[in-house]
């Protein structure tokens, strides 16, 4: 799956595209793990996952978020979610992941969230 990764202020912003489902979750999982390592290595305290170009995420994708969150806690990187579309916002609500992660309406253009 297509994932872009850019630094904005003191955050690393990861932006996956398309769907995270049974055929793409392993790649998504791997990309998130790599981003946590990169944020830690670059001394960035926050990893923002830009959901604006994601159409859908299955339970495996959601659990990949949890794995990344657990990995981040061990290296001092906090994960925030940003800019979910209507479907993604509903999935986060149905799964109660809106209680596990802070969700911002927009991706920061500069500085922190």
């Amino acid at each position, binding site marked *: 799956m297509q994932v872009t990764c850019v630094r904005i202020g003191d955050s690393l912003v990861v932006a996956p595209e398309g769907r995270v489902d*049974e055929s793409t*979750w392993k790649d998504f999982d791997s990309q998130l793990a790599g981003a946590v390592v990169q944020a830690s290595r670059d001394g960035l305290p926050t990893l923002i996952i830009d959901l604006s170009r994601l159409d*859908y995420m*299955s*339970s*495996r994708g*959601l*659990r990949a978020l*949890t*794995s990344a969150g657990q990995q981040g806690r061990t290296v001092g990187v906090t994960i925030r979610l940003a800019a979910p579309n209507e*479907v993604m916002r*509903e*999935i986060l609500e*149905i*799964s*109660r*992941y809106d*209680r*596990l992660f802070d969700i911002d309406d927009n991706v920061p253009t500069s500085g922190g969230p």
Partner: protein
Amino acid sequence: MIVRFWGTRGVLPVAATAAQVRTKVANALLAANGLDLKSRKDIARFIDENLTFAGRATYGGATSCVEIDAGNSSFFLCDMGSGLREFGLDALARRPGVRGGKYNIFLSHLHWDHIMGLPFFLPASDPNTQIVIHSCHGNAEQALRRQQAEISFHRPFEEWAADFHFITMQAGQDYVIDGMTVTAIAQDHPGASFGYRFTDGAGRSAVYSTDCEHNIDDMYQEDAFVAFFANADLIIADTMYSLAATSSTKENRGHSSNLVAIDLCRQAKAKRLALFHHDPLHDDAEIEQMHEDSLRYEKLSRDGAPLEVLCAYDGLEVAL
């Protein structure tokens, strides 16, 4: 094949409180305010058309017990939670004047809430009854004898009149038992648990998979469950918690979520899913909300034929 749910609650039997029932009655009267309901027929139609399930009924509070009825000569049951008591009474009432009978009982595991119904299982008092306990745990007999031993219960296991047999099954092997093919799968649960797939002579199949955690660290192993669920007419799955709960505060408790169950069923091309093993901390409204969330997620995730998502309750019958 007919699947009857005699106990659908997880962990601990519960019952609606007086205050909860009073609230349902008050809400129903408010909803009926101004309507001209003169007959029982009018009232029945109002109840069915105007009240949600949680508003007009209850999911019940007996612990795990599910009957698989494929018209065989013997009874097939999954687990002996507190729902077993009601099943026993119904089984006797279904065959008035007939003594005895054979009961094939399949145990997911030996935790208390899955065996606590046996001391109150009336057919076991009949010397003409044969009870076959099928389990993948080698110590099933010890567990059942221990729960009825003195200090915990007044009537020891040895006093049952019925003829008990214990059979230890191996996961992954097909067993043909009184016309039903039964296969077990190992599941992640403290002390281990096992799911069962039942296939009748006509090829209809139901899977009972409760007390099963699909842990984040084991996502690569879930294909085994997709294969076990493949094309089943009904999957009865442990959906005790939200996905977020199983990934955080309830991790490693041995239970799963509605979203994982839907994804596995969708991949397996199963026809129906029954949400099962409801959290005893959840009231009817919370269980109904989980059902509504599940229906919504099924629509959002659908990529082929729809998956019918039921919410099991004590007394539900599903014809496959």
